[in-house]
Structure formats: C-alpha cells, structure tokens
C-alpha cells in the first residue's frame, strides 16, 4: 500500500534542502572576502527509505525513497594546515621583530657616513695632531676641547637612543601581553559558546572560524600548540597551559612572558623576538659601546715616552722604577686617554700637583660608560688645562716651568688612534675584540650588527614566504571560489525548480484522483 500524499512531502523536502543549499551558497558568496572564513557545504543525504506501508510485508521489490535531507552544514578546513601555519607564523613574528630592532640599530650607528661616531672620533684624534703643531696655542686647545665634547656628546646621545629603544621594546612587550590576554579571554568565551551550540547538535561553523582567526593572530605573537577537544581548544605555550577548554589557566602580563622566555616555554613569536631584541641585541650593543668608551678613557694601552720626558714627583710608571727625567725612550703601560693625559703638563704652568684626567664621570656615575662620560669640567672651563707637553725646565729665576713648545703628549695622544688597547682585561670573552685599536673595535661591532641584520632580513623574508605559502594552501582548501559558488547556485536553483515541478505533478495526480475519479458515465 502506498501513501497517497507522500509525493507532496517528498517534493517539499526537496524544496527545503535545495533552498538551504542555496542559502549556504549565498552565505559563502557574502563571506568571500571575510578574513578566516571557511567555505561551507550542505551535506545532503537521501532520507531513510520506507517499506511500503501495509498489514503484511509487501511483496514489492525495493524500498521507496523518501526524498532528501541535510544532516550537517560542514566547514571545509584542514586542521593540519592550521598547525603548520602556527608553526611558520611564530618564526615570522620572531624574525620580523628582530629585523625591526636591528634596522633601528643600523640607523643609530649611521654607517657608512661622514656624520657617525667614527667621524667624531677621527676629529678628536686629528685635533690632537693639530695641537701637536702648535702646542703653545690656545686656539688649538679649544679645538681639542670642542672635538672632545662632540665625542662625548655623540656617545651620550647614542647611549640615550639605545635606552629609548630599550624602553620602547619594554612598552611593546606590555602591549603584546595585553593583546594576548584579550585574545585568550575571547578564545575561552568562544569555546564556551561553541560548546553550547554544538551540544545541541548544531554546527558552530562561523564561531569556529572566528576562534581560528584569534588563534592565527596569537600564533604570530607567541608559540602555541592547539588541540581540539570536546570542550573546545586547549592552547599551550611550550609546557604552559594557557587555555583548557572553558578554563583560562593564565593571566598574561609582561612579567609572565619574561619568565616564560627565561624558562624556555616562550620560544618564538613576536614577544620572544622583542624580549631577545631588548635583552640580547640592544643590551649587547650597549655593552660593546660602553666597553669601547671605558677602554678609551681608562683601558690599558702601551705608549713609548720619549727621551727627556720629565715626570712629576709621585708618578709611578708601569713597569718599573720611575726616574725624574727619562734618559731613553721608555715603553710603559698607561690607563687610556686619562692616564696619558695625567702625565702631561698644560699651559697653566703647574708642574707639581698631579695631572688631571681628560675625561670625567657625570655627577652620580661610578663607572665610565657611553652615558656617563664627559670632558673634565676643568678643561671645559679653561682650555689651558689641556696638556700637550712632557717637559719642564728650570728657568733663570730658579723656578720650574713647563716647556710650552714641547708637543710630546699631543703626539702620543694622537698616536693612541693607531695603538692597540686591551678591551677585555678580565678575559670575559664577551667583547667583540680582545685587543685592537678603538677604530677596529668600533668597526667590528658595527660589522656584527650588519651581519645580524642581514640574517634577520633573510630569515624574515623567508618566513614570510613560508607563511604566505601555507596560507595559500589553506585558502586553496577553505577559500571561497566565486566560480564554484555560481556553478553550485545554478545546480541548486535547477534542483529547486525541478522539486517545485515534481510538486506540481503530484498535485495534478491528486487533482485527478479527487476530482476526476469515480465519475464514469456522468
């Protein structure tokens, strides 16, 4: 026995199913440009077929189809590509922040140019040569003073730029921490919502897309591993749980991230790049610069004091006994520019009190660094105090006077530019060069920045390519193709029309049964 009206039901099911498919197609087209959107497909299945209804099992062959239903609306997405994307994206974030920092450092060193620290240093050395040509001259001393001030200003300025960079990076880490925290909170609330929706048997496709976009963003900032569970996403950073399903496990702030970086859980991503930039790249640059400045001011350096050099009472030479007047050229070790300057005599005529250092510390500082170095205020206030002579003589009136025309000290001072300093007296192995001229040292660490920056640029652009490639493969799977959607639309539209037509046919059949049957002979 077959049902009279089942044909209408069958056609109705067809109409509904095709309409749903059309609607989903419309949804796909509408979201063609939505970030993170995955195309959706209506899973059409034939309805459960029925045995013909009757008191006894019919003898009719086969089962009668009951039309169409949809059981799911599926999101087309490849989970494997997502984890690949997270993996590449964290490295891209890491290298691109390093690249950014290193490019800033390159701007700070400003090489090759004629306006960099190197130029100021050259001017400083050259001004001592100018002084050696007219050691009795005040103008030449003023030039030495001005160039020395320009040098210390340049050191101070670069040091200031570096500490600015440092605090910028700290600030950036804070901002990123807030972003991560917000994102994690959103993931948790999406986890809850998805859990609720899918508990009712529905597909929370669009919510899942939203959650994936959040994790995409997260994966650039930190390294994450994501597992999809019944309760939603579990997100881990290294060994630290950030989110387990509907629970938020951590409050992310900059202290949390710094700790995670030192424990190794935070291994990559923008934040790791920022922390490494601050604690390694910028800190190391600052350290090298400070070492250079400290060594220049008071690092061990060998000079040869010429015959006839008259030493002040109380001067001790390294090595060895200290006569008043040297009778032969004597190689000694002095403590940098300061130590050498203290051996000399200046135009102020003082031959008894100890010599003054050339560079001094700023108020409150305890050690020479790029930030704390300045020219001795005694020299700044009175250029007579710049020493250039190594000799004294006894004048006719019996007093000891400075040989003002002696340029021994000025020559030794300018000679320091080509003399090897010891940059690592404590043998720490952390300086870019152990020994060498100041110029060589500067070249070495600028070169180091260059190499690091070059590598960061290469890595960042490689990672960018990889990220793009994975994203493109994701797009290939999940992206909306308008051509495809249009074709589908035609398909579903025709099916819809046909279903309507079959409804009409059944209608006509019923019309025949109801209105035209049983009227034989009327």
């Amino acid at each position, binding site marked *: 026995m077959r049902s009279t009206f089942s044909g209408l039901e069958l056609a109705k099911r067809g109409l509904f199913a095709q309409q749903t498919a059309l609607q989903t197609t419309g949804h796909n087209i509408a979201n063609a440009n939505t970030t993170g959107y995955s195309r959706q497909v209506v899973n059409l299945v034939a309805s459960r077929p029925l045995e013909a209804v009757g008191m006894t099992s019919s003898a009719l062959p086969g089962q009668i189809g009951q039309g169409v239903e949809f059981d799911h609306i599926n999101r087309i997405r490849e989970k494997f590509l997502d984890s690949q994307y997270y993996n590449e994206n964290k490295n891209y974030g890491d290298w691109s922040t390093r690249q950014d920092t290193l490019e800033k450092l390159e701007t700070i060193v400003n090489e090759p140019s004629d306006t960099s620290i190197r130029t100021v240093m050259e001017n400083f050395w050259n001004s001592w040569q100018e002084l050696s040509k007219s050691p009795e001259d005040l103008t030449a001393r003023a030039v030495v003073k001005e160039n020395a001030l320009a040098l210390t200003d340049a050191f101070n300025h670069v040091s200031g730029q570096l500490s600015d960079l440092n605090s910028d990076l700290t600030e950036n880490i804070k901002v990123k921490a807030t972003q991560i925290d917000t994102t994690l909170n959103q993931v948790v609330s999406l986890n809850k919502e998805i859990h609720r929706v899918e508990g009712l048997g529905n597909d929370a496709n669009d919510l899942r897309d939203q959650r994936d976009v959040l994790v995409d963003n997260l994966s650039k900032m930190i390294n994450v591993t994501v597992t999809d569970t019944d309760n939603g996403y579990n997100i881990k950073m290294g060994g630290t749980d950030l989110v387990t399903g509907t629970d938020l496990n951590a409050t992310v702030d900059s202290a949390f991230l710094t700790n995670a970086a030192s424990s190794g859980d935070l291994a990559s991503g923008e934040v790791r790049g920022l922390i490494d930039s601050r604690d390694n790249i910028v800190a190391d640059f600052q350290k090298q610069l400070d070492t250079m400045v400290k060594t220049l001011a008071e690092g061990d350096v060998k000079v040869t004091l010429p015959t006839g050099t008259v030493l002040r009472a109380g001067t001790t030479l390294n090595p060895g006994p200290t006569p008043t007047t040297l009778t032969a050229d004597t190689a000694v070790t002095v403590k940098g520019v300061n130590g050498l300057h203290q051996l000399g005599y200046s135009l102020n005529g003082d031959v008894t009190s100890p010599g003054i250092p050339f560079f001094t510390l700023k108020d409150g500082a305890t050690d020479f660094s790029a930030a704390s170095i300045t020219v001795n205020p005694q020299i700044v206030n009175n250029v007579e105090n710049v020493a250039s002579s190594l000799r004294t003589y006894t004048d006719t009136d019996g007093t000891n006077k400075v040989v003002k025309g002696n340029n021994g000290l000025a020559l030794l001072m300018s000679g320091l530019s080509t003399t090897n300093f010891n940059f690592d007296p404590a043998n720490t192995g952390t300086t870019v060069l152990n020994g060498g001229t100041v110029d060589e040292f500067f070249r070495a660490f600028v070169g180091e920045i260059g190499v690091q920056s070059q590598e960061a640029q290469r890595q960042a652009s490689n990672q960018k390519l990889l990220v793009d490639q994975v994203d493109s493969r994701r*797009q290939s799977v999940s992206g909306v193709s308008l051509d495809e959607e249009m074709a589908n639309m035609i398909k579903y539209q025709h099916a819809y029309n046909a279903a309507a037509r079959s409804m009409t046919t059944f209608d006509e059949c019923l019309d025949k049964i109801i209105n035209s049957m049983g009227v034989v002979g009327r």
Partner: protein
Amino acid sequence: MSGRITQNMMNSQLLTNLNSNMNRMNNLQNQMSTSRKINKPSDDPVGLSYSMRYRSELSSNDQYAKNVDGAISWLDYSDTMLGQAGSVLQRIRELTVNAANGTNPQDALKAVQSEVDQLSGQLVDIGNSQFNGKYVFNGELTDKVPYSKTTPEASVTDSGQINFQVGVGTQIPINVTGNQVFGDPSDNVFGVLKNLSTALSTGDQTTVSSLLGKLDERMEQVNNVRSDVGAKTNRVELVQNRLSDISINLQSLQSKTEDADMAEVITNIKTQENVYEASLSAGSKLIQPSLIDFLR
C-alpha cells in the same frame, strides 16, 4: 600549487609579488640616488668594514697632509732665515777681509766696527726670529727669546726637537736650534763677532785676521744647517707626494667598495620596471570576468 584556486589566492599572490617587486625597485632606486651600493651595514657587512677603514684612513691621511703643509712652511721659513744669516755673515766676512788689510787707518776700522755691530744686531734678530709667534731657533722653548740683545754670546738655546707627525708612526723633527746654527755658547758666532768688534775698536789687526778663520767656520756651519734643512724639505715633499698617492689609492678603493656600478644599477632598474609593469598588467587580467558575468 595544486587543486582549487580561488580569487582571493590570486589576489594575495599578486600582492605578494607586487610587493617584492617594489622592494627590489626601492633598493635599486636607493642605490641609484645615493650612487652607493652600501647604504647601511646589512647591505654588505664585510664591504662595510673595509669602507669604514678607508674612510678613517682617508681622514687621518688628510690630517697628515695638513701636518706636512705645516712642516713645509716651517722649513721654508727656517731656510729663508738661514739664507739671511748667511748673507749677513758673508757681508761681515767681506768687511773683515777689508779690515784685515793692514793699510786701513783707525777711522776706517771704526766705520767697519760700527757696521759689524749693526750686522751683529741683525744676526741676533735673525736668531730671535718668530714664525707664527714662535721663536724658531729656541728648541721647544718657543715662547722664550733665545738670544739676549746684550749678551747673545752667552745665551743657551733649548735643544728640544719639535716633531711633526707625517704618517702612522712617522715623525719628522722640523726645527733647528740656535746652538746648531750659530754654535755652542762657548764659541758661538756672536762671541766671534764681539771679539771682532773689540779687535776692530782697538785696531788689533792680527786678531781680526785670526778671527777670519773662526768666521769661516761659523759660516760653514750655517750653510751646513741650511743644506740639512733643504734635505729635510726634500724628504717632507716626498712624504707629501706619497700622501697624495695614498689618498688617491684610498679613494679609489673606497669607491670600489662603496660605489654602485651605475650602468649595472640602471640596467637592473629598467629590467625591474619591466617586471613591475608586467606584474601590474597581470593584475589587470586578474580582475577578469568570472562565471557571474556569463550567467544572465
């Protein structure tokens, strides 16, 4: 790339390619406008360290060249002064030879004496000559008058050497001391002239004749020192030539390291422009009709 291609994939691919083309163009244009291929350390870290060294060496070379100029003018000045001293002594010698001629009456000797005294004063002035406000014949005591007007024969000049730096580790002493030029205080030219003057005033012609030998000795000394100064000037001029050669070498090395090969850069930039235009026109193709346009 396999399988499905969507419009968005093509869009982002186009954007990536346009971006990398733009990057290359930017790089080339930077090279073209600065005419340098190293504009920041990462462009070529190895080349950069060379370029920095050349720049430093050029700068110190310039300074050495300035020092050499200073040395030459100092030496030239000394040479002029020694020349003058030579002519003064020559004149004195002529006068002495005349005076030693036994036929001269005392009057004539008096006249000779007064001229010798004048010339002697002139010689003291030469000994006290100043270059840029510095006494050139007093060693390193350039702020002190070497010869006193009244007793120049007793004056001791400083023996200090003034060195000018003309290269890495190369210093040239450029001054000559009064003692070298005019003799040690025990028998310097001023003592000789004083004796001469005394002998002339007393008409002691034997002494005058005997002093002639001393005078010749002193004159020879002045000439020796002068030829020494000349030799030194030659040496410094050689250094000057060498410095300018080095400077040219360094500049060409610097330019080889730093400068962009313009022909190459311009060719590359042209190629790059073509590629860029091609990718733009690929972009216009991308906004192609889709199936939508055919479904009416």
